[in-house]
């Protein structure tokens, strides 16, 4: 039996619901009398159903999602540090070549002092080369803000899972998470107290 001369592209577009109404109606008519295209559409539909289902199984983990903003600000702060660092390196290279002939410790001390002065000088007087970067301070403030939100959210969630759902495993993981974010603050003690209570069955 001769194959239909219509392109498979149309069958794919039809199965993918990508045809415009002006294209769709004549194709539907064509399908009524064309087993080739009907078979092709059926087959492409199966492909798409299978891939849709397989893709839907990939779910974004809620916990990883919570940290995105904070990590973006961390990345921005790190990049800012990096620009400072690369300027340090640039200075080191320049001054290193000037002082290569000197081998005494005194000379290198002077070199380091000069570099430091040059760096501070550059920092104070040269215009910021990358104006787009946030200054480290505002990024750090952002990180702190998100951290506090995380502590609060995880503590709230821990209470909810403990009292409303009585889910010990989830409560514990929330508290551990809170503790992670709270590192270096008094909130770690709060988390520890709750963890202890949880373990002693209160």
């Amino acid at each position, binding site marked *: 039996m001769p194959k239909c001369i219509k392109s498979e592209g149309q069958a794919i577009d039809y199965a993918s619901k990508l045809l415009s109404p002006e294209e769709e109606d004549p194709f539907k008519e064509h399908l009524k009398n064309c087993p080739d295209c009907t078979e092709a559409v059926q087959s492409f539909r*199966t492909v798409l159903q299978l891939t849709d289902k*397989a893709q839907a199984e990939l779910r974004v983990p809620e916990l990883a999602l919570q940290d995105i*903003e904070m990590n973006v600000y961390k990345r*921005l702060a790190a990049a800012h540090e990096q620009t400072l660092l690369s300027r340090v390196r640039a200075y080191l290279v320049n001054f290193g070549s000037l002082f290569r002939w000197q081998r005494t410790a005194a000379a290198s001390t002077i070199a380091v002092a000069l570099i430091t002065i040059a760096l501070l000088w550059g920092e104070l007087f040269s215009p910021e080369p990358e104006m787009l970067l946030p200054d480290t301070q505002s990024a750090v403030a952002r990180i702190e803000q998100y951290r506090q939100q995380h502590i609060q959210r995880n503590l709230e969630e821990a209470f909810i899972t403990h009292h409303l759902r009585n889910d010990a495993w989830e409560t514990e993981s929330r508290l551990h998470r809170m503790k992670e974010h709270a590192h270096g603050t008094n909130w770690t003690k709060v988390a520890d107290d709750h963890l202890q209570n949880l373990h002693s069955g209160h």
Partner: protein
Amino acid sequence: MFIAGIMDKLIDDEMLVAQFQSGRQNAFDELMKRYKAKIFSYLLRSVRNYEDAEDITIEVFFKAYRALDNWQPKAKFSTWLYKIASNLAIDYHRTKGRHPVYALEDLEIPEANLVATDLHSDPVHQVEEQERGRIIREAVDQLSPKQKAVFMLSRYEGLQLKEVAETLDMAEGTVKIHLHRAVKRLQTLLRPLWENNEI
């Protein structure tokens, strides 16, 4: 703060960008909130590795933040964001070799999916379902990076073909060609499997 949150939702993306450009930091936070799940899941489908998808998502917003001051509203903000993500995903596949590391797949499935969620579910059936999903996702990985990007953006991110074309710097006709090749290739790969009841 609460009112500001409600207000933000009523403002379109491009307005938020304008606000950010005039110095309102919170506008960027709102943009991240709107798009982080979408970009993360797009990247997850593309690189199929949770850690890498997370890292690249962070990289997308990092790059967006640094470029946003000079951004011109020629296209939609979301298209631009997908463009950054697509470029990073294509780079990722280039450096990692063409296909993701399959061996990691088991680690990638969140624990919730591996644990029987109710007492009536049949563990054997669950394992079979997982295996089936894995085989199909591996077939999608066989597509070229561009075929894959076109397929993902149009099928799973809800982008119009015109927007896919903008995102990937292609003519709309080229997008169609890639899309047709992608579906055709998937048919070639999957058909023998479903005909033999393997998936």
